[in-house]
């Protein structure tokens, strides 16, 4: 039928097949031999914001390793926050956790439920952590008065606004109260007949439950306790009714995605945007107009909940490793490093002393918007630190989405979501005994 060509193909195929086991055995040989006298630490981190986080972290780790004899940290990029959590939990599952990791602060109760976290209260008290860390940031790693992590890359949602659009609409400063927010949103919405040209306001989707918690706090309610959520309280229902009112008035987008909403803002398709402080650098540098940053408007008070995460230390490891891990976590959050990290990424520096650094003062002079987010931190607290927080978030997001889509009334949606979530939390707690 054919020449010898197919035969050669087959032979090559066979050869490749035979080579597979040998090829795959090679990297095992290449694994570096482990020295005995240095403490090796693994540190798993996610990449949350623009800027070359990978490079920045690698450089920090290299500097740490160069200046600390006897400790060697290996930085392991672990994907998004969710991926990082999965990777850490998998390693915990086989009893070999990394020495430290950087998850989102909401996962605190999840890791405590797995008995995975080292209590670092005493070390922190002996050090200057309690004096120098900004209170709202420190609290994100506190449970029952004990400290389980050092806040490293905190963020809160803030209100971004398009200054050009504000000037066009004859508006002056950013809105300060919910009522002003709605008036501004209506003035900024542009329609051409039925076609929408620009939304007045978009709340970044995907994390809109995070913003919603801010609304609850602005209305005087922290919508969760250590073992339950409180979304069925009148303050929370009122907040969702306000969202619904804005959507019905046609000035707020009923749904969006996290990246899509940021893109819409940069493209001028929405005049105001609730998004993370972590987006500041990207929004500021990528928008073809001047970007304003303001507190999220208040009802009874200003309020926000913390995103981002603390560096946590594993409980299940040798004392030598724990001590080295503390040294490393302490070093990553020291004054100079926090100042440098904040400038490079747009995250907020966690230490008061970092903000006093000359280069930080200079940064604030250049980018006054950064200070807004830092000041809002005074009014902020931890975000939804309940067991099974991931399911809780899904329930709340779905309740909000269905309400804004007009499928269900705000009160009914929140009551159901609360009941479902609290049942799930109880189930998880029973399982953990």
């Amino acid at each position, binding site marked *: 039928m054919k020449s010898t060509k197919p035969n050669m193909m087959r032979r090559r195929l066979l050869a490749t097949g035979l080579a*597979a086991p040998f*090829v*795959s055995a090679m*990297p095992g040989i290449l694994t570096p031999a482990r020295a005995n006298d240095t403490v090796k630490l693994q540190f798993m981190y996610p990449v949350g914001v*623009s800027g070359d986080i990978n490079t920045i972290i690698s450089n920090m780790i290299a500097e740490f390793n160069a200046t600390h004899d006897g400790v060697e940290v*290996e930085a392991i990029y672990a994907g998004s926050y969710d991926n990082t959590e999965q990777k850490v939990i*998998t390693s915990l599952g*086989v009893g070999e956790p990394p020495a430290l990791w950087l998850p989102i602060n909401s996962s605190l109760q999840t890791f405590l439920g797995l008995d995975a976290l080292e209590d670092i209260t005493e070390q922190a008290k002996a050090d200057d952590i309690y004096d120098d860390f900004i209170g709202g940031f420190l609290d994100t790693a506190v449970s029952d008065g004990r400290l389980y992590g050092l806040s490293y890359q905190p963020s809160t949602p803030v209100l971004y606004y398009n200054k050009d659009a504000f000037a066009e609409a004859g508006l002056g400063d950013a809105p300060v109260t919910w009522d002003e927010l709605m008036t501004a949103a209506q003035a900024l919405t542009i329609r051409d007949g039925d076609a929408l040209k620009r939304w007045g306001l978009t709340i970044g989707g995907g994390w809109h439950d995070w913003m919603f918690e801010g609304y609850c706090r602005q209305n005087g309610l922290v919508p969760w306790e250590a073992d339950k959520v409180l979304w069925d309280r009148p303050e929370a229902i009122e907040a969702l009714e306000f969202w619904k009112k804005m959507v019905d008035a046609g000035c707020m987008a009923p749904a969006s995605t996290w990246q899509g909403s940021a893109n819409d803002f940069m493209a001028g398709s929405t005049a105001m945007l609730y998004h993370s402080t972590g987006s500041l650098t990207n929004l500021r540098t990528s928008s073809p107009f001047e970007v304003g940053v303001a507190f999220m408007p208040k009802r009874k008070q200003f309020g926000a909940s913390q995103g981002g995460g603390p560096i946590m230390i594993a409980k299940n490891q040798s004392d030598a490793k724990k001590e080295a891990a503390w040294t490393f976590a302490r070093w990553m959050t020291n004054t100079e490093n926090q100042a440098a990290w904040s400038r490079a990424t747009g995250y907020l520096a966690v230490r008061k002393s970092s903000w006093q650094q000359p280069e930080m003062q200079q940064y604030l002079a250049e980018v006054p918007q950064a200070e807004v987010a830092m000041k809002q931190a005074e009014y902020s607290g931890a975000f939804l630190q309940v067991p099974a927080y991931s399911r809780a978030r899904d329930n709340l997001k779905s309740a909000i989405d269905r309400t804004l889509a007009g499928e269900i009334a705000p009160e009914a949606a929140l009551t159901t979501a609360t009941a479902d979530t609290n049942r799930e939390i109880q189930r998880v707690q029973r399982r953990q005994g």
Partner: protein
Amino acid sequence: MSDATLTPAADRPAATVPARRPRWRKTLRENWLHAVMLPLALLWLSPLVWILVTSLKTQTEVFDQSAGFWPASLTFSNYPSTLSVAPFGTYLVNSVLVTGSILAGQLVTITLAAYAFARLSFPGKNLLFTLFLLQVMFPIYAIFLTNFVTLREMGLVNTIPAMIVPFVASGYGTFMLRQSFRQVPAELSDAARLDGCGHLSILWHVYLPLVKPTLIAFGIISVVTHWNDYMWPLLVTNSEGIRTLPIGLGLLAKADSGADWPRLMAGTTIVVSPLLLLFVIFQRRFIDSFMHTGVK
């Protein structure tokens, strides 16, 4: 798109001349497929073009509505700055190694398994085959933890084999190939046996040449799947030196601040181009093997 609609329109004046009418019809009859395929091809190409164009823009240009589709000036600097984010060269070598080893392993295992299921009879055959099919139905995420535990016991975590070993057998491939083997007339293998062939020679000389299209189809599916796999390599590897391309891409898609589009698209171009190149090079062979086969 415009080419497709123009072809008949350009010929229309000629169509008024009665003598030429049949020729016009003939052209249309022979080439109508092109008129259908061309818009489809353009549609298929459009995301790729968009990726390429975006990778040459500046960050601000991507969202500026007044800037238009084409970049004002070609910003090639996105490529070097993407490459500086992670060691993409190492990732590329690893991706090739992982995807290649998986495919090689799979071709051996699925061929042997499919032959056994298609042509041999042994006790428990149906039960075993059902188990193989069950494996197809389990989403890979459901068995991540058990796979991880197994690999750890084998001491393979954080090595390149960790990304290969769990995938060297494929229930889906076995099923696909078994169906093809069953379509090969039994007379052919009987004849080979009369000539003194054992199982392996029959497999080699009779079955494999006849199911080449299936093997190639499976090969494409397998390569694309494992080339793009993100979660499993992320889970089982820690060191930069052994990671694969999709993990490098993940570094550019930021959760907190929205993606860095120009560099993400530059990275995507880097990641997909080896596959595209491979396809362009082997395109004729792929298509030939689908055309020239004894089995339908």
